[in-house]
């Protein structure tokens, strides 16, 4: 029937039917999106944007925000958690997230914060010895559009679990009684299955759910003082969201016959591990391409046991969504020995460069470079040059001759220590003291390799922006309307790199972190041994020695009169336009720490906002960039606490701030229910245990 021939009645009926059909399609087949006020994935969508078009909360009213609800997480485990890092989802009026030292999953009423259900699994030793413990980053959501709605997450002990989103009960028919043992298939060496109870593997990132596929990464203990280079091998796997069936596996350490195996010289692929994907992955559902940000191989700072470039260590890898086959890759750091793990969700951005439309992927990084590629071909959008870098003199280590440097956009934060220009300069005396302090270290450009530190020589190589600098796991945000990336970056994270031989019997690696002339210090990873099920395998500490250990604060301290030897701003927020590859604006992040503001030597001086150190996540809305302080402050305008701040996304001007009782410890999110917009943020630290706080405008607004 031609449309013009329809009667009014028929036209209405067709319109209604078409509308219903559209609704059905949009509910069933639509990509996760924030456009209807939901926040259905960890980064808002599965493109890594953390963008919401909501604008009820804006510059004119941000200061009026009040606490709508709060959810304290102390009881979700055997002890309170002080490192709550989750970002909740909000789907159909319900908040879903992880919380507490047992990494429980909770469902909360999005309007009130009322607990609707809670799920947790008591995993015992398996969780107690797991890497990446505590509450994790949150959950993922899957729906068939017909009422089968699932919450999917990874337990502390590395199990993938699918829960009924309405009841919190495991889904029968998914894996075994709703769960999949992710340790099955994890191997060391040339393929030796790890022990399901004690084998090392875990994950605190959220799974990537796309269509009917759940994609899961892997991670391991921190790599500073590891006991073997032959650690568990990283991999990425895809499972069927309906039944949990394994669909494909991508080996991040390629096996013989697989592309990249020859970058592990002397057959070292067989005797090395790690190289997992511990952060968020993203996917282009239309193109059927998945983007994997891969971390470092074992160990973080010595690569003598693995000569070669070590693909796909510290590489962005694009694989086919259906098969897991590699489409392209780009290695950000060759032969990684700086802990430049790819830390952030790659961002999918449709940009226009020189009049040409490009489907791009932009990777924020600890290096504070935004690496931008054509996401179909892997070609850099702007040239990325291989430049000569300093070489290692550590026996057995063979550093790569060159490393990639993007020509555009410019670095959005400091990524090496430029002496003396980057040293503290509040007063000439402080500058002089800082120069003396760094003289104990080897300094130089980016990619300064670790040294064998010694009190008689250099205490270490002084790198900045590697291990905990630049943009870390909280990632960045992207505004698809203006093609702008918003990134918070820590630019005062000095990291002295010194290696030593491990104590007899401790490790099969030739060198671990430390100094041969200092006491060996085991370095544990974040949250290790602090889950609900600890105590764990670690034996009781030896009886105290007769002679107390001498405090070592004075040796090589990287502070001057209690202040960082790096000059402010300590961290920055940047807006980076991806059509032009340029910085649009940059402002200090947060506000001046108490230690600077109250410093006796700086009394009476007018010191502009120094910002504060730390890595935090942010969101971008129709008009605002929103993120919270990483540190507590006590100022004339507020008692001890931290502020959740809003910046005009066009200019970087701070346009509002609201009080939080503790620093932001998880990335924020925003949603709208029944006409009201909320912003939720995880806070914790210091005396304050983990809490999710939801802010909204007073009802009168």
């Amino acid at each position, binding site marked *: 029937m031609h449309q013009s021939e329809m009667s009014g009645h028929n036209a209405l009926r067709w319109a209604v039917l078409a509308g219903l059909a559209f609704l059905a399609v949009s509910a069933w087949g639509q990509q996760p999106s924030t456009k209807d006020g939901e926040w259905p994935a960890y980064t808002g969508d599965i493109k890594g944007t953390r963008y919401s078009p909501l604008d009820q909360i804006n510059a004119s009213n941000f200061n009026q925000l009040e606490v709508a609800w709060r959810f304290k997480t102390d009881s979700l485990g055997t002890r309170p958690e002080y490192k709550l890092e989750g970002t909740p989802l909000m789907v159909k009026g319900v908040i879903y997230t992880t919380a507490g030292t047992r990494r429980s999953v909770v469902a909360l009423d999005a309007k009130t914060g009322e607990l609707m259900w809670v799920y947790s699994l008591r995993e015992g030793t398996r969780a107690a010895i797991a890497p990446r413990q505590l509450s994790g980053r949150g959950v993922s959501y899957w729906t068939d559009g017909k009422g089968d709605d699932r919450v999917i997450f990874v337990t502390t002990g590395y199990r993938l679990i699918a829960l009924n989103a309405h009841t919190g009960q495991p889904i029968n028919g998914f894996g075994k009684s709703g769960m999949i043992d992710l340790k099955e298939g994890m191997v060391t060496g040339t393929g030796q299955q790890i022990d399901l109870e004690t084998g090392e593997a875990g994950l605190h990132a959220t799974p990537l759910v796309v269509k009917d596929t759940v994609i899961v990464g892997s991670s391991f203990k921190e790599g500073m003082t590891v006991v073997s280079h032959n650690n568990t091998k990283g991999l990425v796997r895809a499972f069927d969201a309906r039944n949990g069936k394994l669909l494909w596996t991508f080996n991040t350490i390629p096996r013989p016959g697989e592309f990249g195996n020859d970058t592990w010289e002397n057959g070292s692929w067989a005797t090395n591990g790690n190289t997992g994907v511990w952060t968020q992955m993203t996917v282009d559902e239309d193109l059927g391409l998945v983007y994997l940000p891969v971390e470092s191989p074992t160990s973080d700072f010595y690569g003598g046991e693995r000569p070669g470039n070590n693909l796909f260590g510290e590489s962005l890898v694009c694989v086919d969504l259906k098969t897991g086959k590699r489409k392209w890759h780009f290695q950000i750091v060759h032969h990684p020995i700086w802990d430049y793990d790819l830390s952030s969700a790659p961002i999918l951005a449709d940009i226009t460069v020189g009049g040409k439309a490009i489907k791009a992927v932009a990777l924020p990084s600890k290096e504070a470079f935004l690496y931008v590629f054509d996401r179909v071909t892997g070609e850099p959008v702007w040239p990325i040059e291989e430049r000569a870098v300093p070489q290692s003199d550590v026996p057995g280590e063979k550093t790569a001759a060159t490393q990639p440097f993007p020509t555009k956009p410019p670095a959005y934060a400091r990524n090496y220590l430029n002496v003396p220009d980057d040293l503290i300069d509040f007063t000439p005396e402080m500058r002089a003291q800082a120069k003396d302090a760094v003289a104990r270290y080897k300094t130089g450009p980016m990619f300064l390799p670790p040294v064998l530190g010694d009190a008689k020589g250099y205490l270490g190589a002084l790198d900045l922006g590697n291990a905990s600098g630049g943009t870390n796991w909280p990632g960045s945000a992207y505004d698809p309307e203006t093609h702008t990336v918003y990134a918070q970056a820590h630019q005062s994270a000095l990291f002295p790199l010194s290696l030593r031989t491990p104590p007899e019997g401790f490790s099969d690696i030739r060198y671990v972190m430390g100094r041969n002339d200092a006491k060996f210090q085991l*370095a544990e990873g974040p949250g290790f041994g602090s889950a609900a099920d600890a105590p764990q395998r670690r034996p009781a500490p030896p009886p105290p020695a007769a002679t107390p250990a001498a405090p070592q604060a004075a040796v090589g301290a990287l502070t001057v009169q209690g202040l960082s030897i790096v000059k402010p701003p300590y961290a920055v927020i940047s807006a980076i336009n991806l059509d032009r590859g340029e910085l649009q604006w940059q402002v200090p992040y947060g506000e001046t720490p108490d230690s600077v503001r109250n410093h006796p030597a700086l009394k009476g001086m007018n010191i502009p906002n120094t910002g504060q150190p730390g890595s935090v996540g942010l969101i971008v809305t129709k008009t605002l960039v929103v993120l919270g302080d990483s540190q507590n402050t006590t100022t004339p305008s507020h008692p001890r606490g931290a502020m959740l701040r809003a910046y005009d996304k066009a200019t970087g001007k701070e346009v509002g701030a609201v009080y939080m009782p503790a620093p932001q410890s998880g990335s924020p999110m925003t949603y709208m229910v029944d006409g009201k917009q909320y912003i939720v943020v995880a806070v914790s630290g210091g005396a304050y245990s983990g809490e999710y706080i939801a802010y909204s405008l007073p009802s009168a607004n």
Partner: protein
Amino acid sequence: MLRTVIAVLFAACVCAQTSRSVWDGVYTSEQAKRGATRYAADCASCHGSALNGGESAPPLTGGEFFSNWNGLTVGDLFDRIRVSMPADNPGRLTREQDADILAFMLSMNQFPEGKTELDHRTEVLKQIRFEATKTGDGKQN
């Protein structure tokens, strides 16, 4: 008027309860020495031998540490240790051992030593204000 009186009384009460601060010599050097040994065995692997923190744990000295505890009490800090530390087995240490470690932390943060040991009762330690800077009145600005 009544409100003012109550406010003054309340202020006086708070003042009386927390008349001491970390600047008043609230631990002994012997206690800090014991705490140093205990710290090396139970805390240093995460918080660093110089209390400067690590990837896994925050520093227990310097600006960030001070800003977390400024305006609270030593008892609050003590309880935080009791509740959550050592991370792999909270509560494994005795109150006396926790107090020793706390004494060591105070000494490493340049707070003066005194003639009396730091108590091991939370309610007593809550009487000692944690002040980042020595102001005498607990105010920061």
